[in-house]
């Protein structure tokens, strides 16, 4: 039980998929212009990763090693299509806002990464906890980045104005940069820096020493 609990807690910060494993960064840039889209993407990804991990874990003894990646991708892709269809039917406005990014969950390394690294070797219960933990860890980062970008880029959170922007008669001049993808890079970079400064054992030793002096040139 303690181990299962650990599987859930560890990916939140210690082994966070985005800040520690640097996975799923592409979608973390694309859907974090507002909290709402980040939240919906988080829910969709968490559902997909949990279902795919459990399914793959159940099938793990029957998936031949030589075609395991394509079997995993097929299962994940089918789940994503079904979720996308469900969203278009029951959460139409949001599916419009997320557009192609739900479909791109298929290519999110995080989902395949957990299937390949964990679910293929562990029973369904533990795979589920691991997937849920990773989904939540991803969601946590997405919500932080989405929150900062919406607050600084539009002056609002979840569509409600916190800082009233000039265009609405307030004082806040929205930072246009925050609406562009590079700002997500900056925020994720600062997050990684902050986390690794505080939990120093997360910092990886340099793989290659920096060359301080170039001899002979």
């Amino acid at each position: 039980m303690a181990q299962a609990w650990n599987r859930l807690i560890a990916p939140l910060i210690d082994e966070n998929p985005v800040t520690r494993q640097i996975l799923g960064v592409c979608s973390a840039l694309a859907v974090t212009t507002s909290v709402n889209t980040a939240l919906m993407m988080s829910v969709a990804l968490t559902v997909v990763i949990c279902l795919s991990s459990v399914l793959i874990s159940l099938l793990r003894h029957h998936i031949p090693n030589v075609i395991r990646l394509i079997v995993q991708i097929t299962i994940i892709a089918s789940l994503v299509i079904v979720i996308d269809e469900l969203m278009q039917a029951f959460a139409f406005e949001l599916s419009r806002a997320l557009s192609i990014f739900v479909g791109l969950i298929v290519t999110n390394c995080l989902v395949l990464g957990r299937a390949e690294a964990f679910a293929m070797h562990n029973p369904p219960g533990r795979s589920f906890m691991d997937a849920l933990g990773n989904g939540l860890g991803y969601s946590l980062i997405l919500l932080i980045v989405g929150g900062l970008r919406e607050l600084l880029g539009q002056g609002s959170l979840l569509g409600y104005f916190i800082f009233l922007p000039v265009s609405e008669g307030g004082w806040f001049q929205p930072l246009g940069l925050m609406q562009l993808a590079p700002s997500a890079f900056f925020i994720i970079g600062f997050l990684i820096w902050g986390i690794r400064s505080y939990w120093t054992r997360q910092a990886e030793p340099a793989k290659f020493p920096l060359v301080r002096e170039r001899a002979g040139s």
Partner: protein
Amino acid sequence: MGDPQATAQTKESPAKVIGMAVIVAFVCALVVSTASVLLKPIQDAHLEAEREARMAAMLDTLPGMRELLEEAGAENLETRLVDLSSGEFVASDDPAAYDEMEAAGDPDAAVPVPSELDVAGLGQRGPNAAVHILEGNGRVQLVVLPVRGTGYQSMIRALLALEADLRTVAALTILEQGETPGLGARIEDPEWQALWPGKEVANEAGEIVISVVKGEATKPYEVDGITGATQTGSGVANMLRYWLGPHGYGPFLERLRSGGL
């Protein structure tokens, strides 16, 4: 555990590999197609409702539109199917159901757009289009034209309403776009669309000159662009230039101008 070597052998045997691949593919295909077929009616209802809501919202933004409708004794605009190359109406039981974009994807129906005219980056268009017309006192009072074109990164679909002179914009409503959020996507803002009414699409000579400019518009056929969305802005202008031009609604508008309906 048994003999791991032996289980690995059976798991990797060609029969098992092919069998597993077939089973996974079949089950996944079944699940995906079931979901798609079952949910299609609900999704279509959403799309239809959205289209109608946009149309109604556009009518509400036009000053005096409701009065005009009441005067004409019509609940709504009349939808007619137009043959784009001849400009004539085409008989149809349900013109509103016709989707020009869908027809453009149908190899049997699609009409290729000559590259020198293809400013909107369409490649091909459908042969017909469903236009909405308000008739009053024996002449056209307002005509609403569906248009589409390539923006910075997506297909933009819009409705353009022209006043009775067929030269003055009554309204422009963006129906669909996937431009950069916060930049190009601001063409959906009512504030930007409110810049359009009163603009002239053509000059005195009848040439289509409508454009979206950087900074402040100075001429009646210029509209202020959105900062950081130059390509989206020119995409919108090119879309209108194509559709109002000779390969788009040109023949139809010419026919309306010279002889009414």
